[in-house]
């Protein structure tokens, strides 16, 4: 399984663009899609945190945490930008982090980014099987808005 650091090393433009979109509002923000026990889908916003070479989420006691615990399958999609339609998506498998030092380090980075916590979260790391960055011209640039430039990466 690839970590965020592997994406940064193999595809720095994708990782750099993705990091900017995720942190555009201060705390990390994105959508998290998970797979329910009946194989249907669920989607909710959450606060990803990139630290120590990984991308993580602190997930409270909720249906999406049950999904991640049961099967781990996820997709992360960025929130929209104000002036352009750039998109960033990751997909792969999430796994709960149980190492106390790693949990503490992630929580520290999460708090420092300005995210709020209910103190009952579990920490999950999102391993990356595929990443996609779509880069558009700004809406007011007068340049064509379609098609975007697609940058993609898949774990080998």
């Amino acid at each position, binding site marked *: 399984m690839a970590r965020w650091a592997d994406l940064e090393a193999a595809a720095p433009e994708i990782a750099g663009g993705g990091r900017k979109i995720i942190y555009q509002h201060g705390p990390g923000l994105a959508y998290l*899609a998970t797979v329910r026990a009946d*194989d249907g889908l669920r989607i909710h*916003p959450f606060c990803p945190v990139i630290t120590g070479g990984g991308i993580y989420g602190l997930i409270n006691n909720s249906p999406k945490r049950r999904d991640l615990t049961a099967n781990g*399958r996820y997709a992360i999609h960025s929130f*929209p930008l104000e002036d352009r339609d750039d*998109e960033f998506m990751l997909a792969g498998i999430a796994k709960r982090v149980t190492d106390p030092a790693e949990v503490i380090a992630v929580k520290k980075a999460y708090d420092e980014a300005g995210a709020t916590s209910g103190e009952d979260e579990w920490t999950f790391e999102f391993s990356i099987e595929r990443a996609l960055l779509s880069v558009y011209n700004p809406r007011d640039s007068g340049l064509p808005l379609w098609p975007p430039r697609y940058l993609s990466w898949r774990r080998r």
Partner: protein
Amino acid sequence: MTSWGEVAEQAPELADACLRLLRGDGATTAYLATVRNDGGPRVHPVMPVVAAGNLYVFVVTMSWKYQDLLRDGRYALHSSPSIGDAEEFYITGPVRQVAVGETREMVRAACDQQLGAHDFEALFELGVDRVLHTRWANWGTRDAWPHYLKWPGDLSG
């Protein structure tokens, strides 16, 4: 397949709350999750249209999400974020592809012809299995607490 219009008849307060966010004008973004061929999820933006009380999306036929919807037909749709606003909803259910004809023209009219001008824009009606609307009290604090509206009423998980 239960239509959005049927949900709105049964749960008008919930439907109104969702439509305030969704708008359904073909110009407001929401996020559509689909099922990839390996069973994992995929997410992309779409611009839903509400026409004659039902819910539709145009999806370009060269996209992966179009292939997902043809193969699997299940989706989840989440409202676009409004930073600082403590309200959101999501819908899940099956899709049904809509053939060229009167319904497609009605949907195009409902979005002022902004969408659906091209043959490669396939039209899907979004059916509804569950709806969850969340309004957060004390948003952005450690005391944030959700208030839910759900359909069906016994929805859990």
